[in-house]
């Protein structure tokens, strides 16, 4: 019974409903471009977030919502005068609706070269446990 339900969720994940973008957007931040991949046992969210320091990244899962917030400090503030600007500097934000097929407590993330990679492992269906019956 339990296994069936899980399978159904995994199936619906394949169609993309497990990691789908949420409509909530904040005006004060940039929408980081992302790639989302799905393998047999996990989802992978890869986001371009240049100029973020490691302690400025906050990833949270709440209410079936995966939220990625990255604080970008205004590095020009004490640096000098901006003479020419083609891109802005602001925080990055992105959020996704995730299904219950994701094991929230096992989510891990890695940041290097300005790219954030979030791994969301799928819930492993509980294996049927064989109970040995002993004779008295």
């Amino acid at each position, binding site marked *: 019974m339990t296994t069936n339900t899980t399978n159904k969720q995994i199936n619906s994940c394949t169609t993309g409903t497990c990691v789908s973008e949420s409509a909530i957007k904040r005006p004060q931040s940039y929408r980081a471009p992302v790639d989302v*991949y799905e393998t047999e046992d996990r989802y992978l969210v890869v986001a371009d977030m*240049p100029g973020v320091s490691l302690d400025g990244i906050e990833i949270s899962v709440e209410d079936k919502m995966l939220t990625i917030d990255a604080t970008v400090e205004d590095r020009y503030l004490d640096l000098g005068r901006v003479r020419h600007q083609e891109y802005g500097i602001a925080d990055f934000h992105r959020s996704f609706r995730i299904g219950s097929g994701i094991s929230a407590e096992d989510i891990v993330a890695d940041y290097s070269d300005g790219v954030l990679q979030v791994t969301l492992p799928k819930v492993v269906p509980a294996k049927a446990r064989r109970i040995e019956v002993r004779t008295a």
Partner: protein
Amino acid sequence: MTTRTMLTPASNAVSNLRNELDRLFDRVATPSLGAMLPHPHFLDSMRANPAINVIERDDTVIVEAEMPGVSAKDLEVSITDRILTIEGTRNVELIDNAETIRRERSAVRFERSFRLPEGVGDETIEASLENGILAIELPKSDLCRTHRVAITQR
């Protein structure tokens, strides 16, 4: 009564550099498409002509570009005849046996070049890549440097 002007207008190297920096955008050899759009981040952050920001300091001019997912080995910064060129490749790793659900990041070969104003980049140019940000530091020539004058409050 005639007043003699002791200070002549700054038609020297400093203001020339200022003007040239201000007009940098007009002089770019390969203008950025993203520069015309209000929010470059609504697009893929890596484009064929990367966007740049220019910051002026007392001693240097910094040219900065966002390069997420670009490693130093795939990036080249060069100067030929006062033309500064930033070029390279951004690769997007493929994951084995993975299905792509969403794709907003692209693998791209990029190039951007522009003419350096007089007064910068004659000396050693340094470039660094940190957290996906490329910063090229162009030292100003002695004439164009800003010397801050300390003000004593009495």
